[in-house]
């Protein structure tokens, strides 16, 4: 079968994105816009944008585990909270910032590795159950070890203030915005490289079929452990960024509902997509705000309805929306074309464009069939 002829918009899009330079220019424009925004916007908008970046990182980790490797996790909030607590402890002990950051990557990753070594023996939903247990166990533990965590009140820190050399022209919130966005950007590059490479291909086959994965020499156990460890590491890094933005953390950060909302945001943004994780972060922060303005008591109602609508209409998430619209409109156009030809045959001459690709396809198929005959 011949590939379908592209319409003009698609052709334009293909040529535009195929060029390396266009892509680089696009990235530069986005980077410049993101760099200028904090200078011209208000403190609260800077805070909100930074929060989006925080959750985008956590959701990226979740997406690597769920979207790419196909292992359901409902415990990402545990690693977010864990990272935030480690950062808070580091700040209180006057550790240097790079040490705190590395600790926020390494300790949650190690914890994730230990959990995964045991849990990855399980299949599918049993694994999801073990991950649910993490926030449920985490909250009472956080309350119990109040020397480290400040108990149920939580712990407040004061750090990541704007350094002296920049104090003249940047406020604290602007400096924190830049810190968060630079680190989040780096983490996204790392995440992208992980899923585009050998590991990403192994995840894809693990998601598709474990038996096939074994046959191809990809150990499901090892790659499940790896996916879980990576997700925990991103969760911990997001916890570090969380403490940069909020300067505060409490057992609420670990809450099971945070995990549920992150899963919902990831699916709505686009599961198994780097851009989708970014959109998920935006959604996570934005929708409660918007829903709260419409009617604060029905936030849950609205976000649940949005999630189900997305699953029904755009299963690939917002990121697949342009493709999905094209698909639906092409489908609709073909149906209109077909009904036009069947209902009033004289119109056929007026709508050749809609019918011709199909008829050529059909004749082609017939020809192939002939070739196959002995």
């Amino acid at each position, binding site marked *: 079968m011949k590939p379908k002829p592209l319409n003009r918009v698609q052709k334009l899009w293909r040529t535009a994105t195929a060029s390396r330079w266009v892509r680089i220019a696009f990235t530069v424009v986005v980077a410049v816009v993101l760099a200028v925004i904090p200078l011209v916007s208000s403190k609260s908008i800077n805070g909100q944008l930074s929060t989006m970046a925080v959750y985008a990182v956590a959701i990226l980790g979740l997406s690597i585990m*769920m979207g790419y490797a*196909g292992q*359901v996790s409902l415990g990402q909030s545990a690693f977010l909270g864990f990272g935030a607590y480690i950062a808070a402890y580091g700040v209180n002990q006057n550790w240097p910032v790079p040490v705190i950051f590395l600790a926020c990557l390494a300790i949650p990753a190690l914890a994730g590795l230990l959990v995964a070594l*045991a*849990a990855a*023996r*399980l*299949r*599918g*939903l*049993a694994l*999801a*159950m*073990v991950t*649910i*247990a993490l926030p*449920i*166990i985490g909250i*009472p*533990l956080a*309350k*119990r070890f109040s020397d480290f965590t400040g108990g149920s009140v939580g712990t407040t820190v004061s750090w990541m203030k704007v350094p002296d050399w920049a104090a003249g022209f940047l406020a604290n919130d602007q400096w924190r915005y830049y810190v968060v966005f630079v680190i989040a950007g780096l983490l996204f590059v790392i995440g992208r490289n992980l899923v585009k490479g050998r590991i990403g291909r192994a995840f894809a086959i693990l998601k598709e079929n*474990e*038996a*096939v994965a074994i*046959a191809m020499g990809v150990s499901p156990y090892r790659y499940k452990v790896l996916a879980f460890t990576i997700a925990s590491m991103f969760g911990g890094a997001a916890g570090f960024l969380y403490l940069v933005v909020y300067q505060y953390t409490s057992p609420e950060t670990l809450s*099971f509902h945070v995990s*549920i909302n992150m*899963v*919902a945001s990831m*699916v709505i943004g686009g599961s198994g997509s780097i851009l989708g994780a970014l959109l998920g972060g935006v959604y996570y922060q934005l929708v409660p705000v918007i829903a709260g303005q419409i009617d604060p*008591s*029905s*936030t*849950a*109602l*609205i*976000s*649940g*309805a949005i*999630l*189900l609508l997305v*699953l*029904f209409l755009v*299963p690939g998430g917002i990121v697949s929306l342009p493709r999905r619209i094209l698909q639906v409109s092409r489908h609709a156009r073909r149906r209109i074309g077909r009904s036009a030809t069947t209902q009033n045959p004289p119109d056929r001459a007026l709508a050749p464009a809609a019918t011709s690709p199909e008829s050529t396809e059909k004749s082609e198929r017939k020809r192939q069939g002939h070739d196959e005959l002995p």
Partner: protein
Amino acid sequence: MALFIQLIVEGLATGSIYGALALAIVLVNRATGMINFAQGAMAVLSTFVAFALAQAGVPLLLAFLIAFAFAFLFGAAVERVIIRRFEKGDPDTAVVVTIGLFVLIGGIAAAFFGYEPQQFPSLFPLDSVNILGASVSVRSLGIIIVLVIVMVLLQLLFRTTKLGLAMRSVADNPESSALSGLPVSRLLMIGWGLASLLGAIAGVLVAPQLFVSPGMLDFVLVYALAAAILGGLDSPVGAVVAAWIIGVVENLAGAYVDFIGNDLKIAVPFVVMIIILIVRPQGLFGRKVVVRV
């Protein structure tokens, strides 16, 4: 000794509540191969129906019966309208669908009844009786007895009726059942309706103790999921036994191990669950699934 008996009976009673919801989860899993994270939220909505009726002056037992009927129809409707589209698809998507339902139904309950916890009338008197020197509340005994009756009825339904036979056959092999002329989709609706009804029973049993609010069953659901997984996901008896074990172990560990105390006892069943699953990944009563390529 008196305290010990009391702890065990109370543990069995809370375990029975987890067990009722765990039975619902197992039922849905056997019928459609899904784990329904919205099972608790659906139960809460039905409990709210009973609550509203009782507030309006309907006799308590009648209010419960109407709420159970509502639960059955609601469960069947959810299967027909939403779940059906995702039954044959990717299991991960199905999980996310039920998570969406969990959020949505919780939101519906909150929109109608608010987030404020409210007192719920109890079916059982507040007295306690004396068993071997320990005073045990009638409520706890009542809950245990109700669960045992429910389990017996379910077994009778599945083992002795034609409907039960048909439902088992659909759970076993939907394609062959359809070819033998069973109305598979209607049976799946009935399965979801029954599960929702079981959830409603758990809801009205636990509501006097927890007060009704949209998040009332969130923790019960997590325990019920643990019990269902521990029991092996396809075994109703396993789910109930696991739920009882969870309830009792949690109570005893909270009372007798100083380090655990009242705040950390919630972690005990999960640690036990993780250890058991590592030793027996198929659960206590589950069959080992053999994957054929």
